[in-house]
């Protein structure tokens, strides 16, 4: 049943949470600035609680079931993270408090900077970027500044494999680079011949997602990096898929120059219905001076009697500030907690089980679906959601039918290089029973595609709403539930 909007639920004169009246002498609000009307909803507290509880029940979520959304790493978000991020010692600190009053926060950030650098094989880390895409922006800014500082102004090209995330070309373009698409070879690796041809003195860098969005670790990783370095370019690592590599491979050790991690993917901070993310960026030694401002440093190492102290410093050639204050601190607390609980062995276990789960599902599904790159995969793999004998059925239909089996669909239509792609990332926190149930549903759907195709075409059948008319939304452009009478929708 449809849940009314907060404006439909409103009754004039009803109140939710109210506040005390001022107990100080009153001052008039200047008439020329006074607001005439604030048409906000008027609902009781219980009314509000029921409304949002009912809305929550219309969502699918990790806490409800399997969420194999490729490239998003929908792993379990530990409850302890939520509890700790809410400790008043963290949650009630103001970002502009004097450094001597927030030594706990600064210690946590300093330690996390070092842990992430250690995990990735880098020299240092910034925790400032708000999300992976902002991490890419920071990384690209650093690459731009590095070349500019050397007076190397011809370098305007960034190479981006065709299997890369869509944010890569957008980030490069924002920094004024010319993004050049790099093809994949028949095994899903970067095409070395094409790479060599594009590596000249116009090359600023390569944005390298490894494992790539096909879930494949590039078989020529070291060679790709060497070719780019030889041409004077830098290699940016897109760490969206780092879950496969924890304790398995340190990208920095292999020559990646700058890289972001998505703390909301790899390090278990919740996805929150679309954010907040958190996109730490790590750099190699020669790039540490370019990190954003501010950066946490140890200001005094202390001694036997006194503890070390920490503070902010602006790196020497800093690219500056990319957001207010100093990052999504609440997410940093969660990531810190996660790493502290896992340690070296736990992190490697994450990667091993993530890759084991993906290969297990791949093995169970490749008889029923086309697997365009038939190799051992990393943390995810991509199938074609298409069969030649039932050409009317598309990836979208399979995705929607999965909802009837109570699963979240995989990512579909991405990566673009696979026809009708279904990109499946199970993550390490799923059990064999869940994977078997999902595989059974996928196999069943492949059968239904032949025997009862309308079941797929009309899916989903049991969800709060059925397939939505996206064209109508893009045509009507209704973005607000204005209270009737107060506002004219068409003005």
């Amino acid at each position, binding site marked *: 049943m449809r849940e009314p909007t*907060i404006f439909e639920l409103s009754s004039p004169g009803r109140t939710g949470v109210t506040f005390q009246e001022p107990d100080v002498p009153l*001052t008039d609000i200047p008439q020329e600035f006074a607001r005439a009307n604030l048409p906000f909803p008027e609902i009781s507290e219980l009314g509000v609680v029921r409304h949002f509880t009912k809305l929550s029940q219309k969502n699918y979520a*990790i806490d*409800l079931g399997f969420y194999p959304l490729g490239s998003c790493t929908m792993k379990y978000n530990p409850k302890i993270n939520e509890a700790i991020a809410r400790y008043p010692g963290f949650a009630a600190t103001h970002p502009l408090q004097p450094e001597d009053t927030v030594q706990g*926060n600064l210690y946590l950030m300093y330690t996390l900077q070092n842990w992430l650098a250690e995990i990735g094989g880098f020299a240092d880390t910034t925790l400032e970027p708000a999300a992976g895409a902002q991490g890419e922006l920071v990384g690209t800014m650093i690459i731009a500044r590095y070349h500019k500082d050397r007076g190397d102004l011809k370098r305007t090209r960034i190479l981006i494999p065709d299997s890369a995330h*869509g944010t890569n070309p957008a980030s490069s373009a924002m920094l004024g680079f010319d993004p050049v698409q790099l093809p994949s070879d028949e095994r899903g690796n970067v095409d070395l011949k094409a790479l060599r041809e594009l590596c000249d003195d116009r090359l600023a860098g390569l944005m390298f997602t490894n494992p790539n969005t096909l879930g494949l670790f590039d078989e020529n990783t070291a060679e790709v990096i060497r070719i780019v370095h030889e041409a004077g370019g830098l290699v940016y690592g897109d760490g969206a898929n780092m879950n496969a590599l924890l304790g398995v491979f340190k990208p920095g050790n292999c020559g990646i120059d700058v890289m972001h991690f998505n703390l909301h993917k790899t390090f278990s901070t919740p996805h929150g219905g*679309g954010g907040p993310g958190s996109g730490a960026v790590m750099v190699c030694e020669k790039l540490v001076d370019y990190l954003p401002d501010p950066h946490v440093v140890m200001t005094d190492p202390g001694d036997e009697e006194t503890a070390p102290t920490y503070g902010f410093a602006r790196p020497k050639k800093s690219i500056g500030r990319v957001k*207010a204050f100093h990052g999504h601190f609440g997410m940093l607390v969660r990531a810190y907690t996660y790493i*502290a609980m896992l340690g070296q062995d736990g992190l490697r276990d994450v990667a091993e089980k993530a890759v*084991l789960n993906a290969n297990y599902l791949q093995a169970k599904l490749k008889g029923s679906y086309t697997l365009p790159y038939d190799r051992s995969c990393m943390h995810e793999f991509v199938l074609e959601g298409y069969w030649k004998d039932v050409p009317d059925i598309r990836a979208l239909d399979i995705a929607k039918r999965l909802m009837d089996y109570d699963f979240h669909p995989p990512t579909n239509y991405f990566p673009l290089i696979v026809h009708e792609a279904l990109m499946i990332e199970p993550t390490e926190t799923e059990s064999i029973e869940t994977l078997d149930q999902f595989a059974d549903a996928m196999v069943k759907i492949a059968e239904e595609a032949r025997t009862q195709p309308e079941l797929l075409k009309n899916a989903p059948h049991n969800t709060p709403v059925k397939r939505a008319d996206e064209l109508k939304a893009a045509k009507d452009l209704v973005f607000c539930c204005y209270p009737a009478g107060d506002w004219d929708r068409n003005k």
Partner: protein
Amino acid sequence: MFTPHTKADVEAMLKTIGVGKVEDLFNVVPEKYRFPDLNLPEPLSEMEAAAELDSIASANATTRDFICFLGAGAYQHYIPAAVDNLLQRGEFYTSYTPYQPEISQGTLQAIFEFQSLISLLTGMDVSNASHYDGATAAAEAVILANHHFRGKRSKVLLSRAINPQYREVIRGYMQANAALHIVGDDPETGIEPDLKNLIAQIDLDTSLVMVQYPDFFGRIIDYKPLIEAAHAQGALVAVVVNPTALALLTPPGEIGADIVVGEGQPLGIPLSYGGPYLGFFAVKNPLLRKISGRLVGETVDTQGELAYVLTLTAREQHIRREKATSNICSNQGLMALAATIYMTLLGKTGFQQVANLCYQNAHYTANTVQEVPGFSLPFKATPFFHEFVVQADQDVPELLVHLQDHGILGGYDLSQDYPELEGCLLMAVTEMNSREDIDYLTDVLSEVEHA
């Protein structure tokens, strides 16, 4: 730790895959680099982690330990219990971007309601589903204006009374665009409330004029003349707002602003040492296709039932790749939900009460502080909301230490960003500052040795 695999499970899975051991799945990783050591502390149990993090948190002194008059872009407000209780529903916080509308109507409707509330609050037509924070939302406004004029207007005017961090982020975002001149916030143009020097710089080459309301110093300034002057030259106007203030003040949309952005942290989001917060971004209808970030629109499903979907996605990076105007991918979903719950829960009455408490407490503070010898209000002639500038006849860093020793976070030293405001302190007062706290502040200030 959070992996459910038994030994038997692993064996069964390896058998299905057809490899002998888990390590074999990583043979593609160059052997030289495979399975490096990670120099990390020994892992902790949940109980140990809770204790360790408690001890780290205890090394901080918080706004609860102090009486806090610190604002400057982040504000302490009371957050009703129901806000966090609802946020902690796993159906909300363990879901992701609502790409599949059939099983994401909760998130989608909540964002739709968020967009509606922000549009109403700012007096604008369309709000997006949020940006990272107020500063990046301001930077996105500059990007929008630049695209609106297809790069043909090369000047962006920023008021010097915009939060200095926001101005720095704008410059950072636009650093690759050498043809764009971001000016107007120099000391010569200054911070006079009549804005004459800023208005004088608006010309046909100006794409955007940006001001803040209330401004960084808390002042409420009449922007109508500036907006008229900008529109006369065909330029757009963006206003950075404090959402709490708009409960009492005429919204910028009603006086002609083209873009309104702001920091949504005051709307039920904890201070949390600076993040995650919430950038909001609203425009008038003519600009709606140029808005970056996610938008939720209303539609119907195949049964004709009302449904919500992400729409106009063709603008976004996952479709347009290098041609997208912004690379933003995520929004601040959970923070937007917090703000939606907060605004709904307080509603018309509670939200105005909070704003009025801020206004009244701040004015009481300003009035009592200026009566203390050695302190004055340099911008006394201009109305203000819940933040104001205090001029002290002594060294501000020393004064702040003195206050801190007496359990007070006294405010923000403005000389860090404004050399012309040497000796000036920015103080913020909200509903969290009781009359008793304020009287204590003036007592402590009265004890200070004067220069």
